[in-house]
């Protein structure tokens, strides 16, 4: 039983990390119907810049406490990733707003390669260890273990989701974002500065990406220039699972994917009498994804916008 609870907790933590990243994908998708493939790299940048920033901060010798250092690092990394996000939209997506749908997909992939290579040039290929500065006291929970940091991650994912939801649903900027997502031309007529709104979306999404990157780095104790691809892919999958474009869906999809993976890894073996094992966890996850989409073609919480004939 404690093993099962532990597996659920494992899934919840990974899932929350996916959720944090998936929120970034979903925001951009929601407004532009664009898969921002470079978001995974933004997450990576967030982690890598934070590591560098922390080492600079601790080199000053002021002797700041660990968590302050991490937050300090993050506060340096966030504006930088925000700027990167802003620039990406500006140079790679904006000129293609009226282009065929796949064109921005290809530039997105290009951007993702470029960011990755720039990171390699700056930080070299080796994995960097993330400084061990945050408390990760383990807490016993019905025989299972969960650390402080993990609790923070889960809470943060939920908190950010709620924050974003409030912003999108209740604020004027949020209303403008939704309007832009439905009809840019008319939103412009209403006095919405479309470029500003879209830039803001990228800036906010990229800021969140930095937070997610730091969480990933801190939780696993490392970061490296190529980390963005895989984790970005997982998070994107989560976003789709939940219904892309839907903020609640991103979190639900993320957590569900995390739990599917961890339960898959933990129980596929015993359940199939050892025929399958943890190497089938990804297959299992993708199968679940396909099944969900077959029965709910717009994801778990996605709006069912039946196309009108």
């Amino acid at each position, binding site marked *: 039983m404690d093993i099962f609870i532990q597996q659920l907790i494992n899934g919840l933590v990974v899932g929350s990390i996916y959720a944090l990243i998936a929120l970034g994908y979903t925001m951009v998708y929601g407004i532009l119907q664009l898969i921002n493939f470079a978001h995974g790299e933004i997450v990576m940048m967030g982690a890598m810049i934070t590591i560098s920033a922390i080492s600079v901060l601790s080199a000053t010798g002021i002797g700041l406490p660990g968590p302050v250092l991490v937050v300090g690092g993050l506060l340096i990394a966030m504006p930088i990733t925000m700027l990167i996000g802003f620039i990406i939209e500006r140079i790679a997506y904006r000129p293609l707003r009226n282009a065929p749908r796949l064109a921005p997909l290809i530039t997105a992939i290009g951007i993702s390669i470029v960011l990755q290579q720039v990171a390699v040039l700056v930080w070299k290929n080796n994995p960097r260890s993330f400084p061990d500065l945050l408390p990760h006291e383990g807490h016993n929970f019905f025989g299972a273990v969960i650390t402080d940091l993990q609790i923070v991650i889960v809470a943060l994912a939920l908190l950010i989701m709620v924050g974003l939801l409030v912003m999108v649903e209740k604020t*004027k900027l949020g*209303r*403008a974002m*939704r*309007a832009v997502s*439905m*009809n840019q*031309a*008319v*939103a*412009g*007529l*209403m*006095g*919405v*500065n*479309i470029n500003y709104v879209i830039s803001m979306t990228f800036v906010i999404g990229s800021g969140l990406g930095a937070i997610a990157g730091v969480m990933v780095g801190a939780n696993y104790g490392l970061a490296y220039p190529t980390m963005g691809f895989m984790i970005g892919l997982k998070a994107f999958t989560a976003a789709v699972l939940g219904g892309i474009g839907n903020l609640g869906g991103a979190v639900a999809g993320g957590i569900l994917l995390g739990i599917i993976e961890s339960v898959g890894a933990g129980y596929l073996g015993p359940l199939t009498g050892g025929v399958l094992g943890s190497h089938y966890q990804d297959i299992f996850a993708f199968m679940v994804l396909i099944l969900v989409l077959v029965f709910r073609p717009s994801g778990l919480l996605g*709006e069912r916008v039946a196309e009108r004939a």
Partner: protein
Amino acid sequence: MSNNDKKLLEVKGLQVAYGGIQAVKGIDLEIKQGELVALIGANGAGKTTTLKTLVGMVKPAAGTILYDGQDTSRIPVYHYISRGLSLVPEGRGIFPRLTVEENLLMGAYYRNDKAEIQNDLARVYTLFPRLKERYKQLAGTLSGGEQQMVAMGRAILARPKLLLLDEPSMGLAPIIVQKIFEIIRQIASEGVTMLLVEQNAKLALKTASRGYVMESGKITYADSAEALLANEKVQHAYLGE
């Protein structure tokens, strides 16, 4: 009375092209403060293009647009509305997944006077009681006529000085068309200047005081509404049997 003679809009030699295609080939238009002017013409004559150009959605190739005495060519699209220029676009252009009320509030997006906005909202609801009933419904699920009401209501919330309407009766049931035109007259009577583009030329000319007829990117007739209604050529070309 001097106020009423003031030219709110003055268009000279306007030309618009899409890529190589000239859609508007040098037209002159004038609208005085408080007027209701109709613009009619066949499909593809360039009516919509003209309206879009007036609100900056399309950039002219040549010509000048003076609005309220000022050249508008350098204003970004999203500033037109705060200058009092508002377009109810062809096909209504509502935001399908915003609620009715959110759609209406989008009209007041540029405004910051919260109390006044609430007043105006209440006024729209009295004009269109139907919308009040449905203020929480997603606008995409409304019927065509209701969507047209949303589009007009939204424009009212923008407090326009010059309201441009692009085929407000398209695809609507006769009873709704009558209602929409009633509202148009009412808004006009409140002093809002209007330029009305319509396929239903007869109805448009009956509502407006003056009219322009457009044909393949050019203005072919400009006259009082009654004169146009009586013009045989106009009758033959646009009004049908």
